[in-house]
């Protein structure tokens, strides 16, 4: 009998565990169930009883993905609760496809958070918003704008951005200012050039020659054949954006022809496109580009340049020059030096650095939150983030994590280095800064990208790199934001990208016949319709005449 009792107790425990695991995940605040009809108007609380706190769930990407979320005892949560009467639940969503899948899953369950950031595997945040709008899951936010005047002035002041999040006559998105524009660029190892007695390349041919020398002439002088000319990785459609300086030399940067030369459409329609591909293929054939480029992730790529694997690359100015990012490279190669390089000029005189899309983060409010009467509280929170909460969420507590010096600049002078807002330990506390807090003011930029001395005593000025990149010839591709993916996006994107990669890697021979076959295949997948729809969207948005 005793054994039966034991079995009974064990089974009870197992069943309770199973049932507990089936229960919804515990959240600090209970979320109201979704309702199809708008909620009844909330009853005004009597003056003698304090109003119930509003629960707001915020989903946003992290600024530093590896740093993690702020802890539960974060002082900001208490301040938001006390000053704004809001119980904030802040959830960090993954970037790219993982983040999009998470939001889509929540949308499918009609369980979107109250305020959240659009996430798209193809950086098509506007398309992601429109899809949710069409499903009736998003609330118009135009009526929230008067409730947050300071935020509107600092964040939502770009009419084009506002127009792009307006559908069917209603504003559905809160378009945050885009990151610093044109912030990526071409850089080269000056110390390698000097060692080999080479000049800075200005044409594709010269780039090839330098890349070949970097690959074969042991530019780091370690006696090993372990360097490559180019480094890179694939991101986005086609060959991605990391090699647009090459395609730009042939007048075909990016997926779409926004250059104003010739008709609007897919760049692959251009006669120059196969020529550009042939040049790219010559880099691959000559093995002057890191052969792992098609499989590397961005993190792998960054680890490699910090290990001195290659001498020419396209990189974000902050990822390259910010002290915390540059330090590992500086430690490995204190005498090394990266310098910015101008866009190479192609055989027909074309020269484009890349395509500026102007894409920024877009936030939205779920219809569920609006039905629950939370829009006013969300507006209150956003306004606070742009005013009283700005420094707390962007930098931390004044006097502890940062100070404002006599010139009005944000500084960490005299502070405990571990407590300084720039310290890795403080990164979880400022995770919202790039998504909801910063708006590219001069004070911010000076604080974020200070000059410093390298180990060898050379002055490193991130802003000098940024200035150089921004002054290069970029194609204005902001219109890409209104182009929606085709219905068969998975097949179309695969065919488009796979074909180009196959040509470049030599998996498919590149000649007139195979190129014509490739274009015919694109047409069989509806390329012409896609182009026509894209053109019409641009015309409708007033971005193409």
């Amino acid at each position: 009998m005793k054994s039966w009792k034991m079995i009974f107790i064990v089974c009870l425990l197992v069943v309770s565990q199973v049932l507990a695991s089936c229960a919804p995940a515990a959240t600090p605040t209970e979320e109201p169930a979704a309702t199809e009809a708008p909620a009844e108007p909330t009853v005004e609380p009597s003056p003698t009883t304090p109003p119930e706190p509003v629960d707001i769930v915020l989903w946003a990407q992290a600024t530093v993905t590896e740093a993690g979320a702020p802890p539960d005892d974060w002082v900001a949560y208490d301040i938001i609760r006390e000053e704004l009467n809001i119980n904030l639940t802040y959830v960090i969503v993954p970037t790219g496809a993982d983040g999009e899948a998470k939001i889509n899953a929540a949308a499918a369950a009609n369980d979107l958070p109250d305020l959240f950031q659009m996430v798209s595997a193809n950086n098509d945040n506007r398309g992601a918003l429109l899809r949710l709008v069409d499903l009736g899951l998003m609330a118009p936010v135009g009526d929230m704008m008067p409730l947050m005047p300071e935020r509107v002035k600092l964040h939502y002041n770009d009419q084009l951005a506002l127009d792009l999040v307006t559908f069917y006559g209603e504003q559905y998105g809160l378009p945050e200012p885009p990151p610093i524009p044109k912030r990526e660029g071409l850089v080269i190892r000056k110390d390698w050039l000097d060692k080999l007695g080479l000049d800075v390349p200005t044409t594709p041919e010269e780039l090839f020659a330098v890349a070949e020398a970097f690959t074969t002439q042991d530019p780091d002088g370690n006696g090993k054949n372990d360097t490559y000319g180019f480094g890179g990785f694939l991101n986005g459609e086609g060959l991605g954006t990391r090699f647009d300086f090459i395609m730009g030399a042939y007048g075909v940067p990016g997926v779409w022809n926004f250059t104003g030369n010739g008709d609007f459409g897919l760049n692959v329609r251009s006669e120059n496109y196969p020529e550009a591909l042939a040049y790219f293929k010559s880099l691959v054939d000559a093995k002057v580009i890191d052969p792992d480029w098609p499989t590397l992730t961005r993190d792998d790529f960054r680890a490699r340049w910090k290990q001195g694997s290659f001498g020419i690359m396209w990189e974000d100015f902050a990822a390259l020059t910010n002290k915390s990012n540059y330090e590992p490279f500086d430690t490995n190669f204190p005498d090394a030096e990266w310098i910015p390089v101008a866009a190479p000029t192609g055989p027909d005189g074309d020269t484009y650095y890349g395509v500026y899309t102007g894409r920024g983060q877009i936030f939205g409010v779920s219809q569920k939150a609006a039905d629950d009467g939370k829009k006013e509280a969300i507006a209150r929170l956003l306004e606070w983030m742009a005013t009283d909460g700005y420094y707390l969420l962007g930098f931390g507590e004044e006097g502890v994590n940062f100070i404002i010096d006599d010139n009005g600049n944000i500084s960490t002078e005299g502070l405990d280095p571990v407590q300084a807002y720039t310290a890795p330990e403080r990164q979880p506390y400022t995770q919202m800064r790039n998504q909801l807090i910063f708006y590219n003011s001069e004070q911010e930029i000076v604080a974020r990208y200070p000059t410093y001395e390298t180990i060898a005593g050379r002055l490193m000025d991130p802003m000098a790199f940024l200035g150089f990149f921004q002054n290069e010839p970029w194609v204005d591709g902001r219109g890409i934001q209104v182009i929606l993916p085709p219905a068969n996006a998975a097949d179309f994107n695969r065919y488009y990208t796979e074909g180009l990669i196959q040509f470049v890697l030599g998996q498919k021979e590149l000649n007139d016949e195979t190129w014509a076959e490739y274009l015919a295949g694109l047409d069989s997948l509806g390329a012409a319709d896609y182009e026509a729809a894209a053109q019409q969207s641009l015309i409708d948005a007033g971005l193409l005449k």
Partner: protein
Amino acid sequence: MTLKTLPPISRSTEKFSLKNFFHSIWRQRWLYFLMMPTLIYFAIFKYGPLWNAQIAFKDFKPLLGVMGSPWVGFQHFETFVNSFYFTDLLTNTVFFSLAKLILGMPLAIVCAIALHETWFLRYRTFVQTVIYLPHFLSWVIMFGVLLVILSPGNGLLNAIIEQFGGDPIPFLTSPNHFRWVVIFSDIWKETGWSTILYLAALLAISPDLYEAAAVDGATPLQRIWHISIPGIIPVIVLVTLLRMGNILDAGFNQIFVLYSVPVYSVGDIIDTWVYRQGVLQFQFSLATAVGFFKGVIGLVLILISNQIAKRVAQQSLF
């Protein structure tokens, strides 16, 4: 020598009555109680969601819910079957599934027999631990390990190839090699784990049979051939039948982590396509339809395989 087979399940010839049925349940109530957690798990996570599978035939709208979304018949099935890469996806999926089964299973059996035949207990424990370990690594970690080994730039294997005068091989981006990378990395990761099942089956064989065979002068190989292998045939049949039901599951996690654009032609499988077209494009009805399609194919294959196994090997699931 007679084969040891599982005893047939006795079937009552008594006429069915509700009273007898409940009486039987009451008599074995503790056994049923022990089964409760499993039954609850299956009810909640396996059978409950089947209700939502109806969205495969609907144009699912979250606001309208599963019941309220409009019916569209077989539209999503047609979309999938008529998709540009349908044949490629099906071929790749079946290829990976079968290759993993055909190459992976014999290796696991060989490993299990080898471990079973080993007399040095410590050595056996050590080998078991070593071959189980990769199972506990995620595919993300495995990708990092594979990149270190297979990278054409500085990979270990390519360094060896170059030492012998060969050209580096882009294993992860070459369509000619990628499939083998997928198959062998799966075998590397999962063979050790798969041996557990066969080893358990081998340990269940009565030692008397081995002793009697040894007395009769049977060599170790003969003992393996005439005792060990026949003894685990029911398990082999069981595993094969179950794998046939999942023939269209080629390992999403593995492929998703390992594949890249240059090898889409040989690496893209049904599940990765569903992820791109169904989940990321918010076509959950399409994704469900493909899941339904896979389930039906799997069920048909299980039924056919079961009949074949019953006739050929006198073993079956049901």
